[in-house]
């Protein structure tokens, strides 16, 4: 009984994505199976809007990931040395703050700052926003790793004459490398996926891939969206599996 019920729950979780991926290979335009074809993938590749969105998303995700991984790793290490309740409370709060609130509040900040700096919305505002919500994910992954990390290794290094910085750089950082990789992949995925916050703080020249997909999905039926979605599901799945493996190491 329990097994059957659980199987149904797991099917509920997976069926929609599997069906979506299956129909992305459908040669017909409608939801009737007409045969296997890569037609919609070719159409997606030929779409200039999608291409531009993809490039923007990749640029933004690259910058956001690099920044949030460095900032988050340093913060996790700092909090591991000694608790920083205000910062860690703020990070948890940033995780549960509804995206729409984060989005409009950043929009309000950027509009307010615009009056003094004359800096319009664009890629940079999206990167700033993405870093702000990714730091929490990075610190959680790194902190989890540090919890099982032996403090005495650093102490030994310092007893042998290493400075605080050298002990971190040569002893702790290499031990954290897999976790840092895992955190970076996670941060890449959350940045690449975000729609709500991005759509509020993006400028006219910085439409990301999720924004293009969203507009297409709202407009109605286009199997091109299925193809792009299937592609994203598979890529994200691979990245998350790698991230997970790295966290186990």
């Amino acid at each position, binding site marked *: 009984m*329990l*097994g059957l019920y*659980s199987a149904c*729950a*797991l099917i*509920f*979780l*997976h069926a*929609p*994505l599997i*069906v979506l991926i299956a129909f992305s290979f459908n040669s017909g335009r*409608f*939801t009737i199976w007409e045969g296997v074809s890569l037609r919609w993938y070719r159409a997606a590749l030929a779409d200039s809007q999608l291409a531009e969105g993809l490039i923007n998303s990749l640029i933004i995700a690259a910058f956001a990931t690099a920044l949030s991984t460095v*900032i*988050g790793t340093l*913060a996790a*290490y*700092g909090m591991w040395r*000694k608790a920083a309740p205000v*910062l860690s409370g*703020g*990070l948890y*709060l940033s995780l*549960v*703050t*509804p*995206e*729409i*609130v*984060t*989005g*409009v*509040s*950043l*929009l*309000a*900040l950027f509009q*307010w700052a615009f009056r003094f700096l004359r800096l319009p919305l664009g890629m940079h505002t999206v990167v*700033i*926003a993405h*870093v*702000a919500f990714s730091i929490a994910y990075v610190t959680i992954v790194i902190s989890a790793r540090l919890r099982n990390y032996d403090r005495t290794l650093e102490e030994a290094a310092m007893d042998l004459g290493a400075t*605080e*910085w050298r002990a*971190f750089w040569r002893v702790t950082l290499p031990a954290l490398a897999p976790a840092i990789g895992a955190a970076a992949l996670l941060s890449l995925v959350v940045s690449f*996926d975000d*729609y*709500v916050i991005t759509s*509020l703080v993006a400028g006219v020249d910085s439409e990301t891939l999720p924004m293009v*997909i*969203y507009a297409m*999905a*709202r407009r109605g*039926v286009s199997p091109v*969206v299925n193809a792009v*979605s299937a592609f*994203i599901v598979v890529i*994200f*799945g691979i990245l998350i599996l790698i991230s*997970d493996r790295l966290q186990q190491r």
Partner: protein
Amino acid sequence: MKLRSAFLLPARVWMALFFAAPLAIVCAYSFLTRGDYGGVERPGTLESFARLADPLYLGILWRSVWISILSTALCVTLGFPLALFIARAGRRKNLYLQLVLLPFWTSFLVRTYAWLFILRDTGLVNTVLQSLGVIGKPLPLLYNDWAVLIGLVYNFLPFFVLPAYATLERLDPSLLEAAADLGARPFATVWRVVIPIAAPGIAAGAVLVFIPCLGAYLTPDLLGGGKSVMLGNLIQNQFTTARDWPFGSAASMVLMLASALLLAALMRSRVARELM
């Protein structure tokens, strides 16, 4: 100790400038008057908060709470047996956990779109039912509260399963044996032994589902199609189309406060400390 402060500095600066400061601005805006061209002006007023008590907006608030309660209840119903099953799956535990988490990490937008693909008039369900001759014309499955509910449950189910599993996993199997030895049927064992012990995990999971449901924007927008307006959609509308920033800010503050209070309640529980 100097190294530690230097390491914490970038995160502190970034979170202060781009998380705390924006929230402070919105908080300030919520007490100001709407400007003639969409901005904000003095004098300070409580009018925006008072407007939230207007029947129209009270209705939206109420609907958000109600849909969130229903989604949470459905997640508990669907997720608790699943968590129990995984906790008792022995060596396959990790495999099943991965199966729960994997769809969760594949794009939130795509997961919501998948339901659009399934539920719309020319979608999978209607096409299949029509070709089987069960229905003549498409059922209106999309753009209503039910579609939003399905989308929310689908998106946030793992938030419940994880903490529920964490408490169930530590359940001492000998307790179940004792209950069985004393003549309890499986259902009675679950109801009178397992659920009371797992209650903290169930509560934590329920809160973790309720918070994002309450602040949902994307799911009601895509699957509710503007007909099923929740608090998140109201806020977005006030900041974009309606350009009433003080009112949008007041609604944001209410949502933020509710989320923060729920988080505080969660952090005080033992389960949360063990999970984090």
